[in-house]
């Protein structure tokens, strides 16, 4: 359940942000994927079958919709009183012998369903307006989001475009252990995102795009499944600020190096008022072996600084207003090695598989993979 909560929040926001991507596909197709994520050492496992439909209505409208139903299971580590078994699921536990406070695995199992739909409308001057909706539901979390985007072509040949996207989401979280009463309580949080992007075709084989983004989260941003130790012997729910303002930028460069080799390079800078700064370099390459097979290979490097209210120690926190020992808020770096193979069976049908390895300096190791099928109609 603990990680589960993160996934709920993340999937909702990804749906929102992902759906603000402009430039819809001109193909009509159905894609079915079966995606998996597995952490080593009995960690989190995710199985996520998904379907995506892209349908054009004339030349002015494109509808894209996707449905994901994922099951999340496994275990994650939280502070526990090893004698009583009490953990974050208790509102507050005082432990007589501090030697009995240890991080132990707590198992969870959850199911989630998410729907994402976008309609792109092309105007007479071929500028594009995108309208998006997304919804995510599970037993203790639901999210509803709306987004809109506008893409303006700045020249006749459509070599240069400016785009703006806005997203809003409302999330409801079931806090099973309110810190005051100990009872379950529904909490809410909202997310407002804004991006402004510029894309320029450089020549017949390359393009560059840059974007600036701003994000404002407010409300209940604490993870109710994570805990901290205060005064060396009290296990209690972590506490995060109820506001988070972030900004940053992306730079993307895409180049067809040869007729059959394409390289995409992305750099992203992110900063927020929790003192987290991050840098991401993501390189993806596609090599078309022949008319049937395309090989994908890539590498991603990520590094971040820690939040100003994070500490991993069980003897650090006393009466601080904000406190978290969630290691995703720590200072670490990560790397991903990515591979994929796409096979075009004929003009309408293609298959693809991918296998990727993700490693963090925190000790987290995981693999994620996909088997997919695409039918153009």
């Amino acid at each position, binding site marked *: 359940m603990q990680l589960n909560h993160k996934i709920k929040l*993340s999937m909702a926001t990804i749906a929102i942000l992902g759906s*603000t991507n402009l430039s819809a596909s001109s193909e009509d197709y159905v894609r079915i994927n079966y995606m998996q994520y597995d952490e080593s050492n009995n960690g989190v496992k995710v199985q996520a079958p998904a379907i*995506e439909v892209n349908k054009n209505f004339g030349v002015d409208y494109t509808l894209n919709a996707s449905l994901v139903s994922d099951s999340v299971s496994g275990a994650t580590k939280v502070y526990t009183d090893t004698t009583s078994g009490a953990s974050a699921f208790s509102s507050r536990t005082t432990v007589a012998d501090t030697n009995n406070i240890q991080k132990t695995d707590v198992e969870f199992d959850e199911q989630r369903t998410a729907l994402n739909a976008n309609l792109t409308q092309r105007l007479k001057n071929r500028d594009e307006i995108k309208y998006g909706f997304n919804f995510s539901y599970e037993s203790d979390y639901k999210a509803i989001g709306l987004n809109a985007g506008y893409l303006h072509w700045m020249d006749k040949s459509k070599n240069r*475009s400016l785009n703006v996207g806005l997203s809003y989401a409302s999330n409801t979280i079931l806090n099973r252990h309110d810190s005051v009463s100990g009872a379950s309580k529904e909490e809410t949080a909202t997310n407002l*995102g804004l991006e402004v992007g510029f894309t320029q075709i*450089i020549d017949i084989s390359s393009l*560059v795009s840059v*974007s600036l983004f701003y994000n404002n989260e407010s409300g209940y941003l604490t993870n109710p499944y994570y805990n901290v130790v205060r005064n060396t012997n009290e296990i209690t729910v972590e506490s995060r600020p109820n506001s988070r303002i972030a900004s940053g930028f992306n730079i993307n460069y895409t180049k067809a190096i040869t007729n059959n080799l394409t390289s995409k390079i992305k750099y992203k800078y992110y900063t*927020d008022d929790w003192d987290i700064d991050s840098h991401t370099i993501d390189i993806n390459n596609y090599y078309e072996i022949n008319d049937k097979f395309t090989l994908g290979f890539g590498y991603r490097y990520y590094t971040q600084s820690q939040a100003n209210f994070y500490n991993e120690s069980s003897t650090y926190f006393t009466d601080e207003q904000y406190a978290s020992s969630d290691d995703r808020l720590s200072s670490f770096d990560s790397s991903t090695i990515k591979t994929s193979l796409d096979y075009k069976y004929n003009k309408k049908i293609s298959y693809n598989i991918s296998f990727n390895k*993700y490693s963090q300096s925190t000790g987290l190791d995981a693999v994620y993979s996909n088997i997919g099928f695409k039918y153009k109609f």
Partner: protein
Amino acid sequence: MIKYLLVISTLFIFSGCIKEVKPWQKSTHAKDTMQDGGLDKLTSAFEEHIYFSKEATKAGNGISGGGCGCN
């Protein structure tokens, strides 16, 4: 601030290399491998979801570009 100057610098650097590309010269830009998200946008979204779940960066995966104008 210096970092944001990097964005502006990028535009200036590439502005010297820009050649006008006519619509009939965009066959390379129209290829799936050139598109944002690559050959499989569902898997790309799943990948972003993993990073979002396991890392603290919570924004910036949105409107990265307007594409090539091939549609």
